[in-house]
């Protein structure tokens, strides 16, 4: 169907085929489905995944993905709530797992910008690197990225009561790491740096909630004005042991070596850093 806005073709919805016309791209056997995504646009893939889930499929393997956005979004099933395992081969596009509702996505390759945008729950594993604004506005679940991430990671990540999102990055990050963070736990491991320092600047600028842990060298000038370095507590080590432990197991790193490094714990100094700047 041609969608158009003011006479313009719609880049996202234009020429999207109906579900019955694309069923042949999914190969379902028992509770596993394999989808050839190489000739599908993002809406078609998500439509097919939704269809598969409603057919009782619990594991979906996507092959030939190359740049399709929003994979895994719109998989919302209130009752019952099946948890899908989605395996992605190829190169998923921006906003992978946006609004993700409790499913597990495993990417065998690199991801792009906006991984886990406003993700609600579940898990995203990336066996590779990711781009900018990873875990933007994330509000639950866990993201593990094996290699580096780009700018503004965990920007405005948030938490509420016992719903606390977790992000672990194995490599290093670029500027504005944890910008405007309002909650959650973010761990940066720097495993590929050797003895070199992290290069990220403006770490935690505008941060007003949550906790960051950084392993490796960071100078004070690289930190934003709103964060302070505080001592590690027992609870912190427990958190690191769990999530960094899982990270090492999944991606094949030596747990004791990783956890044996120096960790810097960063917390915001105030909950309202700009309270005096803005009147309202």
């Amino acid at each position, binding site marked *: 169907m041609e969608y158009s*806005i*003011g*006479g*313009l*073709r*719609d*880049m*996202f919805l234009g020429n999207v085929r109906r579900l019955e016309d694309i069923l042949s791209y999914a190969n379902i056997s028992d509770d596993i489905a394999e989808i050839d995504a190489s000739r599908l646009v993002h809406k078609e893939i998500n439509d097919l995944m939704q269809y598969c889930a409603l057919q009782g499929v619990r594991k979906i393997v996507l092959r030939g993905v*190359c*740049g399709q*956005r929003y994979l895994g979004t719109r998989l919302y099933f209130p009752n019952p709530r099946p948890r899908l395992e989605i395996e992605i081969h*190829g*190169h*998923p*596009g*921006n906003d992978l797992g946006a609004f993700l509702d409790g499913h597990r996505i495993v990417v065998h390759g*690199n991801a*792009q*910008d906006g991984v886990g945008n406003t993700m609600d729950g579940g898990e995203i594993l990336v066996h590779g*690197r990711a*781009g*900018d604004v990873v875990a933007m506005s994330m509000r639950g679940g866990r993201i593990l990225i094996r290699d*580096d991430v*780009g*700018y503004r990671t965990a920007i405005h990540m948030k938490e509420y009561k016992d719903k606390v999102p977790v992000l672990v990055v194995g490599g290093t990050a*670029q*500027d*504005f790491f944890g910008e405007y963070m309002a909650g959650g736990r973010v761990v940066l491991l720097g495993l590929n740096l050797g003895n070199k320092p992290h*290069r990220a*600047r403006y770490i935690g600028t505008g941060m007003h909630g949550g906790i960051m842990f950084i392993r490796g060298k960071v100078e004070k*000038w690289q930190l934003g004005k709103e964060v302070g370095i505080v001592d590690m507590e027992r609870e912190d080590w427990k958190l690191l042991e769990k999530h960094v432990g899982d990270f090492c197991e999944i991606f094949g790193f030596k747990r004791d070596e990783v956890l044996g490094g120096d960790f810097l714990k960063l917390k915001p100094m105030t909950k309202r850093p700009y309270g005096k700047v803005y009147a309202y």
Partner: protein
Amino acid sequence: MSMRRMRRETLPDKEHQACGLFGVMNRKGERFGGRMAIDALMNMRVRGNGLGAGFAAYGIYPEHKDYYALHIMFQDWDLDAKREVDKFLGANFDVVCDEEMPTNPEASVINPPLVWRYFMAPDKKGDEKRLSDDDYVVKKVMHINTRIKNAYVFSSGKNMGVFKGVGFPEEIAEYFMLEKEYRGYIWVAHSRFPTNTPGWWGGAHPFCILDWTVVHNGEISSYGTNKRYLEMYGYYCTLLTDTEVMAYAVDLLMRRQRLPIEIVAKIFAPPMWDHVDIMDEKRKKLYMTLRMVYAPLLINGPWTIIVAHHGEMFGITDRIRLRPITAGEKGDLLFVSSEEAAIRAVCPNLDRVFTPMGGEPVVGRLKGVEKELRKKAEEGV
């Protein structure tokens, strides 16, 4: 301008997405067709909107490599403009060859203008003999753009050319037959439409002066300051959109003032003052000098650009990276793109993928002695 009003009536409203940029260079100077650039932009279809696309290719006219190749667009097939341009070029250049741009009439594009190409050498007279050939050509291009109604110069370098218009990348490529007609060692491409402008053929990216081309994703909020500064050096912006200033700025800084990209990067995207404060004295002095001398060429706002000229291609973002960039390498090929998937779509097995820090350029240069290889590439090896 009546021209602008008319366009607003005939074209649909623009929709805001994000531009798609792509550049590929063979650092050995080996030439190849336009397929990779076309496929990469097709992969980033959602970044475009069908209101603009364009390509720049280097090394495409080996048979005329010593002549300036001008691609000139005549809006609304204005033949009076064409006669005026012909007369003007005849009086100022030795035109060795000129012809209508080969196009495919079957391609689905909206209102294509007449596009003509001229191969020519400067024929300087009187005072103008003091100008270098390049400066002379810039002056004459500015004359056509500002004084001859309905004529706009798409590109004006040697052994290179810009092909652009209103449509999707694959439509523009089909119209100009880029896949079969041309082989270049650098291809730079753009999809979507010029910022803050109704889509029109002259306003599509890339922007070009001499052999410098720029494609841009973002919005240059310092456009007014940059434009006024460039006017002092004889560059006049006529294409109704912000990116044009970048093409003239790189020509001024890199060709005329011979600054390397590593320095130009620090003029366009200077480090923050609080980082200058903690530098050692030598670097502090350098960066403060650059800020004092070139303040009006600081490019503010969100931007990622890919710039190319003979022998070199580079990609760079604004200093806090408000627009994306990814670079990839495979053997002699260097890729720069808005998205990694677009690179993977045309070259799945890359040796390396990386993203530079904001304001730090990714640079591809011809290997070995640049000059020698450049000659070789122009000969079509």
